[in-house]
């Protein structure tokens, strides 16, 4: 409520200041615009509110109402508000994660926006992730890389380097374990973190296309190739590569292990950088490297989850909503909201500039020039909801009891046969 008021006041105030300077493109917008956001953490929230205020400034005739909902609660509430009391714009995630709403006809087809030259060329890299049934259903506003964040000082102390291949990754890990530490920290209480490991191991073992075939239900979980991926994973598990009792921890609770030097690295999205820096790991102690290749000759592919804006099909101010989506997709706005002072992530728009941050630069470099295989969204966004939730449980079980693998795969295969019918 407070944010709504604040945003409206900001919009009104700015409207008063800029009154007279009519909208640049001639046809001024008017009416209401109701925006629902899931960016409830302090920094993203401020970023979004500032961006909405700028939109209000450019469109003084529009009366904007913003509602910010807790990020986790949003995931269940969206079903209710899309059907009952739809806003004009809502945040969500790309790929299969939006499929239930697209299939139910709750998201507006915005393919027309993607005809626009600006969007068509500059957002081309994520068009695939926004496409279902040949149409586009929203626009992306940010994404971030995944990869291995490691303790540079510990690696130096142990005399190991960023691994260039799977054998080096394993031999590094052996050295780390020999020094009484775990190679990787992870907290699997909420399951999805294990999905990141599976994504990378599977994409590196068999490639992006195979991974997507599995996500789309075209490959059996009991397939020997899937077993090969788990066999690779098991090598790390058996050598004691992961912290113990990870099933008890959330990802945040798993961070102290790397901060205290009890673990040497973590496979995580770029959002881990901010808390790690806050905990005292400066750039001399924290570094990043791409997940090394496993099977030779397989094109590297990355996870880079994309967050998006959509127009619910029940929206009442679709013209204003379209204008807002265009605004969000513009190069300037994307540079601004993704810079280090705001989201600290990567802009999707190719003409945007990237903030000068070590990890953002490395991530951008990796995604734009060293990810020829493709860009995946993330396990729980690429796999259909039901498959993802069952599978992530299986992944957690595998990490604790690797011997249960055959049983887990048979169970997942049963789920696959039902989910993709």
């Amino acid at each position, binding site marked *: 409520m407070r944010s709504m008021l604040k945003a409206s006041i900001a919009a009104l105030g700015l409207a008063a200041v800029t009154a007279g300077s009519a909208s640049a493109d001639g046809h001024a917008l008017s009416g209401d615009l109701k925006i629902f956001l899931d960016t409830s953490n302090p920094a993203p929230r401020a970023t979004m509110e500032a961006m909405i205020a700028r939109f209000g400034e450019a469109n003084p005739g529009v009366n904007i109402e913003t509602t910010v909902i807790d990020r986790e609660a949003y995931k269940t509430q969206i079903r209710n508000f*899309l*059907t009952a009391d739809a806003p004009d714009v809502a945040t969500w995630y790309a790929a299969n994660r939006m499929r239930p*709403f697209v299939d*139910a*006809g709750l998201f507006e087809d915005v393919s027309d926006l993607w005809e626009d030259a600006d969007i068509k060329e500059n957002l081309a890299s994520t068009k695939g992730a926004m496409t279902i049934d040949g149409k586009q259903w929203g626009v992306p506003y940010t994404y971030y890389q995944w990869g291995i964040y490691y303790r540079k000082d510990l690696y130096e102390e142990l005399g190991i380097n960023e691994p260039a291949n799977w054998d080096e990754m394993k031999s590094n890990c052996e050295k780390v374990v020999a020094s009484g530490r775990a190679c990787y920290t992870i907290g699997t209480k909420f*399951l999805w973190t294990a999905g990141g490991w599976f994504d990378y191991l599977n994409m590196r073992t068999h490639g992006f296309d195979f991974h997507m075939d599995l996500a789309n239900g075209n490959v059996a979980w009991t397939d020997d190739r899937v077993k090969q991926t788990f066999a690779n994973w098991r090598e790390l598990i058996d050598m004691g590569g992961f912290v113990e*009792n990870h099933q008890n921890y959330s990802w945040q609770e798993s961070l102290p292990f790397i901060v205290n030097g009890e673990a040497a690295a973590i496979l995580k999205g770029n959002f881990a950088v901010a808390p790690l820096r806050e905990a005292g790991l400066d750039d001399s102690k924290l570094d990043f490297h791409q997940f090394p290749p496993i099977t030779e000759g397989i094109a590297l592919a990355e996870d880079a989850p994309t967050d998006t804006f959509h127009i619910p099909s029940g929206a009442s101010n679709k013209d204003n909503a379209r204008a807002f989506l265009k605004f969000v997709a513009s190069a300037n706005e994307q540079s601004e909201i993704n810079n280090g002072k705001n989201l600290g992530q990567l802009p999707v728009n190719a003409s945007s500039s990237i903030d000068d941050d070590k990890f953002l630069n490395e991530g951008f470099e990796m995604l734009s020039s060293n990810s020829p295989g493709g860009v995946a969204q993330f396990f729980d966004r690429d796999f259909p909801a039901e498959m993802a939730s069952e599978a992530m449980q299986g992944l*957690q079980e595998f990490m604790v009891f690797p011997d249960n693998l055959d049983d887990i795969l048979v*169970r997942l295969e049963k789920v696959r046969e039902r989910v993709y019918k």
Partner: protein
Amino acid sequence: MAETTEINSGRQRSWYKRNEIAVTPWLFLAPAILFFAVYVIIPIFQSINISFYDWDGLGEATWVGLDNYVELADDRAFEISFWNNFKWLIFYLLAIPAGLFIALFLNQTVTGIRIYKSLFFFPFVLSQVVVGLVFSWFYLPNEGLLSNFLAWFGVDGVNILGDPTLATYGIIAAGLWPQTAYCMILYLTGLNAVDPEQVEAARLDGAKGWKMLWYVIIPQLKPATFIAFVVTIIGALRSFDLISIMTNGGPFGQTRVLSFYMFEKALSEFGFRMGYGAAIAVVLFLIMLVFIAYFLWSMWKEEKGH
């Protein structure tokens, strides 16, 4: 209006006046009946109806007959949740004897006994979420109080909530803490009503210790025991918040109970199976029905007896 004035004066009494005795109770009950019907009775039938459909909560529902139930019969996660519910029902009842013994222990006149009583009652006042958090810290594998304590005895690396066979018992133990306090309060009030003359008479006949407790005190506490039994059974079947806080159903779904599994399947982040969730709810409802029937029957018997 005109009529009402006439009633008071006239000989022709209104319909309401003539039927006042029969109608008034129903009028008073009407709001409760209305809300009970709208929020409890009708939803029960709706749930049963939904359980015959395959529905993601958004699009069209398709009729699948008993398919959801057939799938349940073959679903290992459901089986685990089902047996966990039974573990809860059985072990949660430990709160009753535990509450009784604390009540007996505290039922004495010592300086400051009110403070001790309120300290023992304290856990029941805490929110279940707080209890869950406190116990999950208590159980932490390395930093936790319990594992430090066990380390003194040379038992290392106990991770109760991370161990699929122990986790449910760990959560039940956490739940027993406030539930014991609740039962204790029920028994403390019950003990106030124990007839001192009977105790005196029993004492003259040479009863003491266990015999006194078993044959004289406990029979007199029967009403308290009944209420304690009811609230504990209901508490066991509603065990949701502790599980959600302490393990989130994990490790790999081994601590789920039916209500949690239903929530996961139908309403959680990845839950899009309303029909399947409703089928689980129906099974849970049938289990509850056994207890509800028993409670109603024993209350009816009680009333008839008087």
